[in-house]
């Protein structure tokens, strides 16, 4: 049993030095050029940074002369991310997913320990968000779908988008404007609320 400090107010007023912030993360997903980096930049304390994961691919193909080539190519996959300091020594990281579908396998690393995800949707290119929706649904990761209103204009009804994406009634769906902090804040709140709701339902 822990011993009680003789003066609790003094004990709480002087936290020990060298306490690192607690870090949490939310994943921002969606197709190429849907506004993920803009979304992150609208609310991040730091300008969005870019990190790369390099992979060496072993590719075998037929060269122009008809011969079989066997060579290595290095592919880099870029991820953008930002950071928000919250009260209580909490740091929230926002990680954007690499744009191309063929890097879905990298998402396991990205989502490990995440609160949940926001999937950004461009209604002109709905199909681009299918991989993200499938991924989060398949792994039971809490996610919300945000229809990005380019130029601030909502071109489609949300229920039409829900139907087109085949989203269940329990998936939160909202409009957002990736450029506006007020809108991105609401999207992040929706992700956290959904994650909390999941825990309470258990």
């Amino acid at each position, binding site marked *: 049993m822990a011993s009680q400090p003789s003066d609790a107010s003094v004990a709480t007023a002087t936290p020990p030095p060298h306490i690192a912030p607690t870090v*949490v993360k939310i994943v921002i997903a969606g197709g190429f050029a849907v506004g993920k980096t803009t979304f992150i930049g609208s609310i991040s304390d730091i300008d969005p940074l870019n990190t*790369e994961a*390099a992979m*060496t691919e072993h590719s075998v193909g037929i060269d122009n002369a008809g011969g079989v080539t066997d060579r290595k190519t290095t592919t880099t996959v870029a991820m953008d991310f930002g950071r928000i300091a919250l009260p209580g020594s909490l740091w929230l990281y926002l990680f954007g997913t690499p744009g191309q579908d063929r890097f879905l396998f990298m998402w396991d690393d990205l989502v490990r320990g995440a*609160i949940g995800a926001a999937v950004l949707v461009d209604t002109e290119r709905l199909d681009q968000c299918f991989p993200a929706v499938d991924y989060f649904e398949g792994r039971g990761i809490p996610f919300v779908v945000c229809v990005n209103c380019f130029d601030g204009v909502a071109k489609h009804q949300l229920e039409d988008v829900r139907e087109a994406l085949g989203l269940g009634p329990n998936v939160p769906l909202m409009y957002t404007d990736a450029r506006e902090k007020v809108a991105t804040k609401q999207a992040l709140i929706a992700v956290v609320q959904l994650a909390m709701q999941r825990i309470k339902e258990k």
Partner: protein
Amino acid sequence: MPELYDSQPEDDAEDTYAVRPYAVTGGRISAASADLPMEALVESASTPESLRGLTPEKKKILQLATGEYQSVAELSAHTRLPLGVVRVLVTDLAEEKYLRIHTGGTAQDASVHDESGGLSLSLLESVLDGIAAL
């Protein structure tokens, strides 16, 4: 030996690193480094004098993580080294006691996760309040 760790010198015009990335790590990917969350925070525990003999990449990481916490992802962005390389270097430096790794809040922190691996309600409440106050 997998191709990934092939250390044969190669003429690669697109390679922007002075040394090929996986040569920087000695061609290794340790199990411990693969588990290191990209949002884990790193803090230098070394003095400038103690850096003698370290590779430029390791020195750079320690310099960046001096005086402020840096996540593994941020170190990767600032050094322009791939995430996997930074993970190996950070794990090495931690084993050699040059830096400290803080994983509070990440998937490696059991105190904020419930039995099924989900984050604790109290932590999520703090995050929610924090975002709402932005």
